[in-house]
């Protein structure tokens, strides 16, 4: 049953994908085409990236609310500078640095993650407004063609890179330490894991993921908005929850969060084609989340009863 909780994300994704296919086909009389798959891929990429970062932090037992601010800052800088490759590298460094600040405060300052990242969230959001006070800016067409080409699924290659990156990361010493810190911090410290450095590293990685998300956001929308990041705070946490990552830390995987992120996007489409009254759309989105969480909790309870 523990397996079930870990695989919750894939199950929910499979269910929403089947539902999407069914609802789309009944509504339009034909299955989804390449335009639909490509649009889903390109609009989901930013959330997928933020969710990967968020899941790493949650696996160590923390939470990162500042992802919204980091995405906003990175969107603002990318759009304001026109998204040249040099500036994109600078943006990635900026995101990692912003995340590192969180990590240092949480790990060495010993301030609760929720407080730290709530504070830095407003700082980063404010900085984004200062850089890009009015929505606008641009991105090089060449960069767009490589990142989120509206005609060719280049996003798939980037998604594959994310999956490969995670696959490598969890097999490194750092990856194992992330789980060790999340499972039992005291025990990890006792066996010589540098807990502070692992935590700082995890928040920096989350910042880097948010920066990548910001670049992808500008690439799909072709412009920037200093308020772009705000919705990612809740949706990234929701993706992690649906993806079966335990908030107590130590369990779950970034791939579950990726599945959760795609599932959350597909729910919007399912509601759309099911013809749900727009006034009740957010109600159904919330219900979906509650059901997913309850399934996860039920699985965890069953697992506990079985081992007891």
């Amino acid at each position: 049953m523990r397996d079930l909780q870990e695989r919750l994300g894939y199950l929910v994704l499979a269910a929403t994908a089947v539902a999407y296919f069914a609802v789309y086909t009944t509504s339009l009389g034909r299955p989804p085409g390449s335009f639909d798959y490509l649009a889903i891929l390109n609009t989901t990429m930013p959330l997928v990236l933020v969710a990967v970062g968020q899941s790493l932090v949650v696996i160590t037992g923390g939470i990162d609310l500042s992802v919204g601010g980091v995405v906003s800052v990175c969107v603002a800088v990318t759009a304001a500078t026109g998204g040249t490759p040099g500036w994109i590298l600078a943006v990635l460094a900026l995101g990692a640095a912003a995340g590192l600040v969180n990590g240092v405060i949480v790990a060495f300052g010993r301030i609760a993650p929720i407080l730290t990242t709530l504070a830095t969230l407003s700082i980063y959001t404010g900085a984004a407004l200062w850089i890009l006070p009015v929505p606008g800016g641009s991105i090089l067409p060449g960069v767009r063609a490589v990142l989120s080409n509206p005609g060719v699924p280049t996003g798939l290659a980037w998604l594959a890179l994310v999956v490969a990156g995670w696959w490598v990361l969890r097999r490194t010493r750092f990856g194992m330490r992330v789980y060790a810190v999340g499972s039992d911090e005291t025990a990890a410290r006792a066996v010589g894991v540098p807990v502070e450095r692992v935590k700082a590293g995890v928040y920096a990685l989350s910042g880097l993921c948010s920066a990548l998300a910001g670049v992808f956001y500008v690439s799909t929308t072709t412009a920037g908005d200093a308020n772009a990041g705000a919705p990612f705070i809740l949706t990234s946490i929701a993706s992690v929850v649906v993806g079966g990552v335990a908030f107590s830390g130590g369990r779950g995987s970034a791939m579950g969060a990726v599945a959760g992120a795609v599932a959350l996007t597909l729910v919007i489409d399912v509601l759309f084609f099911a013809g749900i009254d727009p006034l009740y759309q957010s109600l159904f989105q919330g219900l979906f989340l509650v059901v997913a969480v309850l399934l996860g909790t039920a699985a965890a309870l069953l697992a506990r009863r079985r081992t007891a």
Partner: protein
Amino acid sequence: MNLPRLGMLFMLVLATACGTAAEPPADAPAGRLKIALSNSFIGNQWRVEMENVFKAACAMPPYAAAVECSVFNAGNDVSTQSRQISNLISQGVDGIVINAASTSGLNGVVQQACDRGIVVVSFDNTVDHPCGITVNTDQVKFGQLLAQFVVDQIGGEGNVVMVTGVAGTGADNDRNKGAKEVFAANPGVKVVAEYSGMWDSATAQRVTAAQLPSLPEVDGVWVSGGTDGVIKAFADAKRDMPVFGGEAENGFRKYMAGTLTPQVTGMSIGQPPYLSVVALELARAVITKEREKGNLTIPFPVVTGSALTPGETVFPDLPDSFFADFTDSGPDAILVLCQEAATDGTPCPGKTLDVKLGTP
């Protein structure tokens, strides 16, 4: 051992999903245009009225027979709105009418809609991609007109208070800019206080009540939103009533008409909720090639003095927070709608809707 349980779970979710899908939207009769409204945020009175008049217009002739409408809300989330517009493209709609979550965030998907020959009209919070058409009012002029009215009424001499809106938004910026230009051009006018009422009557009332004790005699008040709240604060403090230039809150107009006392001299201008209906008509006209593609700036519905008509420019049985400018009035009215269109989204009985876009 997990398989049967997993299978059941899977079937359950699938069954739920198919259950909701059992009633696909009815196919439109041939020849009806498909036009969808994609709105972002739906949490305030203005947006609710805007959506209600859109639904009412779609149910009234000539639209009831010519257009098949649908309405979608995305919240203030660009990716949700972007997904919904992608799905509208897949549905093969003829036109999309947008009140955007971000002026720039939908550019990518709007471009894709244009590439497929879909007419995109945005209003209120518009989309800045050049392939789309916009319908809006002139917010700088909003500030100027109200400020000029206040200056004229007080004879170009006296103390003025400015109650502004939500900082960081384009409309607030533009309105304040217009007002300050006029006040600066009149050296006899002194702006004694400037504070934000957040476009909300309750907030405007609270902040004004807090400011009043420290203010000298006030001759004129310029309000970007929440006008009825500001008047209530002046009345509660037993101050002499200054001249008011404000938004189109029904409460403000009740004071102007004298339904609420004390009677107030004022000018009321609004961002009309019927922008959604004007956008619908523009989309229809462009799709049917009756009109060239081109942006449209519509005049404000303006009401001055005490000559208000109940049921047309002021609504005694509607709440103070209601925006009274859901319908235009006068001989040059762009369109005329009834009360139930704005409150319930139901068609006005026995009426044909005539939207005058003017010459391009």
